[in-house]
């Protein structure tokens, strides 16, 4: 609320003039604000433009977090300018730069074309399974609606894509936002492009390293990570399960020894809607290039499914990055400890440092370290280790995991995510993307 003292801040804004070209630079402004708690970053930009530099360019439309036009990187983190309150930003300086992975048009304005192109590639549009004259009867507490929840509320702001360190590593990676929409359509019993969509998206899902950046930055609190994991499980169940009637053409493509790897068997609390596989309705509206793409991708994704396990990203070729967790002897046998890992991340413009906690569990028998991601597999909240209860606990929705990471209670759909580990020269390392 009001009653805050006026405050002056240094605002550093990325500038790029298309007429000049080059790498761009930062301009430094000073701005005095009467009440920072009533001032958004969008207000800051509007004021800077009005009072200090008329040529400053940024994008907005609704100014109330509904259109997703004003995504940018504010103090190193993706956010909507119209939803970020100045008072909430700590420190003297505020640094504002355009979203990563997108070509810059001018200053903070990026070209969103790649976003929409990726989005479209995932066949992210409803295609009625059959003609109906009346809205389908679907109970709000039905499985599918509980799975889809508010994930359809994406406003296509691009924050998740910008935060994703994988998005610009793989030409064919659809990225979190598109995959989230794919997921909501796959879960929607009314939709008729089930198999094509699955074929289109599954390969993409194995590019995800479960870093959860997308989940963290999404202004609508959507977890694309959850969506991606859903698609993987769905595929495991529908395509690879022996005797599955789905997509026999896909299964024919598989090598003879192909059965689902153990790690891919759906976990008990799977999220699949109880829906018979839809038959394909008319493909009239389908663009012909789509079909070609599917054939090509099919082969790629099968390779991906067979070779990878849900948590073994190392099977894909890419530079390995091992991050030091600490001295191995600091994690005595039989203990579970929290450690902080830090590592630099390079994106389109800058290198930033990721810092996040991990859990190190040292089991006595066999003598080995397990390092867990500290995010709950439900919606990505931070877990904490409770020594008394001997459980990992999520305060958001009450999820609980046993010391070996297996779900004990609550909504988490699967075990905790773990890192690949290695011990070298007395130090414990985990592999990061």
């Amino acid at each position, binding site marked *: 609320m009001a009653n805050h003292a006026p405050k002056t801040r240094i605002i550093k804004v990325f500038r790029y003039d298309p007429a000049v070209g080059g790498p761009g630079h930062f301009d430094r402004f000073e701005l005095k604000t009467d009440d920072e708690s009533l001032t958004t970053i969008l207000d800051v930009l509007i004021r800077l433009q009005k009072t200090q530099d008329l040529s400053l360019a940024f994008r907005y439309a609704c100014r109330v977090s509904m259109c997703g036009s004003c995504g940018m990187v504010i103090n190193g983190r993706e956010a909507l300018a119209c939803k970020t309150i100045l008072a909430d930003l700590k420190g003297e300086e505020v640094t504002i730069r355009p979203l990563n992975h997108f070509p810059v048009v001018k200053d903070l304005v990026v070209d969103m074309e790649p976003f929409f192109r990726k989005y479209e590639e995932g066949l992210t549009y409803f295609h009625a399974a059959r003609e109906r004259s009346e809205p389908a009867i679907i109970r709000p507490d039905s499985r599918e609606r509980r799975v889809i929840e508010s994930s359809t*509320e994406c406003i296509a702001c691009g924050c998740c894509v910008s935060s994703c360190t994988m998005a610009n590593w793989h030409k064919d990676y659809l990225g979190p936002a598109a995959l989230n929409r794919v997921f909501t359509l796959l879960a929607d019993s009314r939709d008729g492009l089930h198999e094509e969509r699955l074929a289109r998206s599954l390969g993409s899902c194995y590019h995800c390293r479960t870093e959860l950046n997308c989940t963290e930055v999404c202004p609508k609190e959507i977890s694309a990570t959850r969506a991606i994991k859903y698609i993987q499980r769905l595929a495991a169940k529908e395509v690879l399960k022996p005797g599955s009637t789905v997509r026999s053409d896909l299964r024919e493509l598989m090598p003879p020894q192909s059965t689902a790897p153990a790690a891919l068997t759906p976990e008990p609390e799977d999220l699949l809607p109880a829906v018979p596989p839809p038959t394909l309705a008319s493909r009239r509206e389908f663009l012909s290039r789509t079909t070609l793409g599917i054939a090509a991708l099919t082969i790629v994704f099968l390779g991906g499914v067979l070779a990878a396990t849900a948590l073994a990203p190392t099977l894909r070729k890419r530079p390995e990055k091992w991050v030091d967790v600490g001295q191995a002897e600091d994690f005595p046998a039989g203990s579970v400890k929290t450690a902080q890992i830090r590592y630099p991340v390079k994106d389109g413009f800058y290198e930033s440092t990721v810092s996040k906690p991990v859990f190190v569990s040292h089991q006595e028998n066999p003598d080995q370290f397990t390092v867990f991601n500290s995010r709950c597999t439900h919606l990505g909240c931070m877990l904490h280790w409770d020594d008394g209860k001997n459980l990992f606990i999520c305060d958001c929705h009450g999820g609980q995991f046993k010391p070996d990471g297996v779900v004990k209670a609550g909504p988490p759909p699967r075990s905790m995510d773990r890192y690949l580990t290695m011990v070298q020269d007395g130090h414990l390392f985990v592999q990061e993307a």
Partner: protein
Amino acid sequence: MKKIRTDILIIGMGGAAQLAALNAFDANPDLNIVIVTKALQGKGGCSRMVQGGFNVVLNSADSHEKHLRDTLKGGQYINNQELAKTLVEQATPTIKEMETRYGCFFDRYPDGTVHQKPFAGQSFDRTVHKGDLTGIEIISRTTEQIMKRDIRILEECRALDLLADTTGREIVGALCVDIKQGDFFVVEAAATLVATGGGPTSYRFFAPGPEKTLDGMGMLYRAGVRMVDMEMLQFHPTGLIVPGSVVAGSLLEEGLRGAGAYMLNSLGERYMQRYDPVKMERTTRDVMSRSSFLEMMAGRDCEHGGVDMMAAHLGAEFVEKNFPGMYTRCKLFGYDLARKPVPVSPAAHFMMGGAVIDTACHTSLERLFAAGEDAGGVHGANRLGGNGIADSCVYGRQAGKSMAQYLKQERGIPQADERQIEHLAANYLAPFARTSGPSPLTLRDELREMNWTHVGIARTEEKLQQAIDIIEKIHEEVLMVQLTGTGGRAYNMVWQDWIALFNMLDVSRMISASALQRQETRGAHFRLDYPKQDDRYGLFNIFLNRGANGKPILEKRPVALKYMRPTDVVN
């Protein structure tokens, strides 16, 4: 200059524009359709900002007749009844198509059928919604459907002016500017639809996104299209006040008052006792806005110059659960909607007036169609909450079908008049050549303040007369603007703001001239000097066209009471 030739040009990409594109395409997939939209695809406009929902008859206990009666009653019986009838009748198939073809999923009753909630001014609970973010669901889904089809989208491209043939009777396309590059281009089309969604951002407090700047109505007026009901501008009673922030004016939805939230002045009085002791805060938007405004003018305004809205007594949990979007929006600024009063003010919200259309969306000019908030007549003197998005979707759908039909006979793409194009382009570039002159941003503030005080919620002859002169003065200054320091033409926001002023000024002209003509109070139009609704004065509409001097020429015409008579007009 780059030229694009197409069968159909659609200006805008809100609900009306998108449904038009989808319906035209589905009627004939061979049609070349080009959408020109000022924002990124699917991101502009108010359709996606719809919170409350969509009025539609779905229940057998409800009827189109009841919906029509509610709509006419809300509009104080000056609606075009033919348009209102088509609205309510076609809303039913429209919403069903949104679910079954486009994949929208609206909230359900526990039994799995589509949920309908109450909304002010309705005799039946008929508002379909998706939580309090209905617009995001509608527009996200229809935008995907556009992507799915072979429809060309030119995003961040702004239509500047409609282009006429040499007779001025036929519209042959539009002059546009690519905002990203700053380059002009022309679209020539066999049929053009204007669907830029009005958007009265020409006031101190406004609800629509600032990106909307009355462009369509300005263009229509300048092209000589006949307009109607321009004095009818709706103020939403509860725009959030956030001092100094661009967020100011953003809405707290009406459902809150529907659920029992009440309004307080600085003395802590529920002042609605004085203005509408029966319906209290559940009264119509016009009465609620006017009452708050009068309280503010009488010096009983609260801390930030507005009034307070109180929802805490409904129970914190109830508010958080049922109005999550509103709760979060307030919370962002430290206001606790679920537990404390929140400062609000009426905010300019919606243009009931607009281009004269028939039920097939033809305007008064050949080849030109209009739909959605840019068109007038559906809502009369006051729009019911939930009829706005219904209007845009229904009439967008009508327009799409109608254009496809029109192009069955008429596929020829006419040519635009080169001289007109050059002349317009030169005018739009003029300020770059000047080195001194006023700033467009200051002039915009001036115009907003002037409209708020002179052409706002409570109007008088004296103020309206003054306004008409001030508008011309501001216009003269706008013509002197310079753009030094704003950079090149690429993504030049200040240049775009300057262009917007022409549209805001033209609409201000239309509003003030029409408001002066209507010497009574009716619906959203409140005259302090004629505070009573006067039915003896006759039920009429004010039509207008642009005169040679740029000012409107007005004509009053009686309303055709084709289906229903004002048996019970209540104020």
